[in-house]
């Protein structure tokens, strides 16, 4: 009897063990390495000095430079998220309210950008916005401008590149939310005297908020962690926090400092996810990938 109970208690752990081992090996242990690294020091030769030093943490938390870049990173991520939300909602609404046949095709079109490398998609803007790019060539040929306009390599193009990259994530999340709304609710609102706009504002929009929030969270977290876009489309000053992590680890070979920086970014984005989960739950994000 006791053996049966013990066996029953063990069963979930046995069943969970492959997942737990995977998470442990691929996530927990590497994360612990990063935590340990953050307390080491980089020596003059680039080798690491093993020990328990708070220097990296004091530098990262006390230096205004890192705070400023972090603020700039979050500002760029915020602009990107807001733009994605505004321009992503419309196509999501359109897809959700399209007849079944077209819907499958439109969803396929939505997935199409994922088939092309993110770096290639980012670099495509150079051919569009460059001084010899498509837009300048068009404007020059129809006489709107006399000489090419400098459109590339600034914060605006960084945000543009991020919007291009993240928009499908927003659309998918909002679409899933809109698709789950019972159409009878809108019709009921209209039958009770609402105009089309009022029905959207009072019924559809509030019910689609979980999808909008899930899309926003995804866009914000992915945007805040990017480093390719500022390298390709940014100017000399347009760095994001991930670029500092890259520089600390790769250029300066300062893995301890890079570890502390990456943990700060991870912690702040983790707080966001926790807040989101507390109020909305992560189920909504999972739905869009089903």
């Amino acid at each position: 009897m006791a053996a049966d109970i013990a066996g029953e208690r063990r069963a979930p752990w046995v069943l969970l063990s492959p997942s737990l081992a995977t998470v442990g090996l691929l996530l927990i242990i590497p994360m612990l390495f990063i935590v340990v690294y953050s307390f080491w020091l980089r020596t003059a030769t680039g080798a690491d000095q093993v020990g328990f030093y708070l220097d990296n943490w004091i530098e990262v938390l006390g230096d205004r430079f890192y705070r400023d870049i972090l603020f700039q990173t979050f500002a760029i991520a915020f602009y990107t998220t807001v733009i994605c939300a505004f321009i992503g909602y419309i196509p999501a609404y359109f897809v959700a309210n399209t007849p079944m046949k077209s819907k499958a095709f439109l969803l396929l079109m939505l997935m199409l950008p994922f088939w092309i490398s993110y770096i290639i998609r980012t670099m495509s803007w150079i051919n569009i916005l460059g001084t010899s790019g498509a837009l300048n060539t068009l404007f020059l040929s129809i006489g709107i401008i006399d000489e090419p306009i400098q459109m590339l390599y600034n914060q605006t193009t960084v945000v543009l590149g991020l919007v291009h990259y993240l928009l499908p994530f927003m659309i998918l999340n909002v679409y899933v939310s809109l698709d789950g709304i019972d159409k009878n609710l809108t019709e009921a609102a209209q039958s009770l005297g609402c105009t089309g706009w009022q029905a959207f504002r009072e019924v559809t929009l509030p019910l689609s908020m979980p999808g909008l929030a899930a899309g926003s969270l995804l866009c914000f977290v992915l945007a805040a962690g990017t480093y390719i876009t500022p390298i390709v489309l940014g100017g000399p000053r347009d760095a994001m926090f991930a670029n500092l992590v890259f520089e600390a680890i790769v250029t300066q070979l300062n893995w301890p400092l890079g570890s502390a920086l990456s943990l700060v970014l991870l912690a702040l984005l983790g707080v966001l996810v926790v807040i989101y989960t507390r109020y909305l739950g992560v189920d909504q994000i999972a739905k869009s990938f089903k």
Partner: protein
Amino acid sequence: MDDTKRYERLLNRYRDGDISRRTFLTALGAAGVVAGVTGGPMGLLARNAHAATPEQVRFDGWGGVVSEAFEKYAFAPYTEKTGIDVVSGTFGGADEYIARVKAGQPGEFNLAHLSGVFDYARYHGLELTSELNEDNIPNLKNVIPSLIEPLRKITGGTLSAVPYDYGTTGIAYNRKYISDEEAKAKGAKLMVDEAYKGKIGGWGEWKTRIWYGALQSDQDPNNIKDIDAVWDMIRSHRDLALKYWSSGAELMSLLAEEEIYVTEGWSGRIKALQDQGHDIGYHDPAGGLGWQECIFVLRGSPMAACEELLNFMLEPEVAIAVAEGQSYPPALDPNKVELGKIIPTLPAFDPSGTLSSLSFFDPAYWNENEADWSKTFSRVQRGY
């Protein structure tokens, strides 16, 4: 008994039939997993397992036309002649590669096409240097002595690499907008000329930015007296620049598309642009930056196989073919080797074989300041 012996004994036991194939592979696999997760002693076993494989060596380079030249002119004939495979990899920069090597096990990476004396010293500081048996590399006698000596100084008279090519980082400019006379007259200060605001580029690498900042503030880059003046120059350049480029391909694209009119650039890449028909001028200013590239052998590598490959790569016909492919002069001494017709036309080529007109990074000086300056540059770049 060292780990190589343990690995060989394991292999011998398998060959003798003492252990099954399954047991042998399981033992190796387990060692690999443990080494991957824990490093440490099992990592040393894995390291020597790599190093004890004489059938192949790993070579890492810059990719693009340079790697293509190596593949075509050096590796394929070498494999055909010796039966040793060259597993070729690429990296985007020396910093990226050193991070990879640091993360790997000794012996995982064997040879690399590295920049300059600075990196050689950096690798030595990280205890990654090996010791070449120069008797196995007879073609080393054809290499320009002034390229070898700085390497010897760092590693106490021995070598862990052979110099392979050299070039300069000079000023590249679009002749449609900037004349040769203006480029020569202004020199390094052309890149802080407000007249070209928004049309200036620069390599976003701290050493080059500081070198040019020193020239722009009339200082000796290998003996900077006023580093604040250098940072001010870097700030001026930053505020006038449209873009810091990070690869040769990006440099070429920015100049070819006329996004920028002036930048510093690598001599070989500018030659490639000129060969494509772009009217790009190139000027090495006074105190301009010369550099050499070497083929570096990392500690823990199969030395005999690596030395054989190095000797093969230094064969004049191979070195010249690679040099023509990548547009950088070979490290071969023109006083000892007939370099053909194309090499003397390459930018930065020194017919005297002394390279006395070029300035190089003083490795001791730059390594001493590396931690501080690279970190400060990161801040200055971002507006500080």
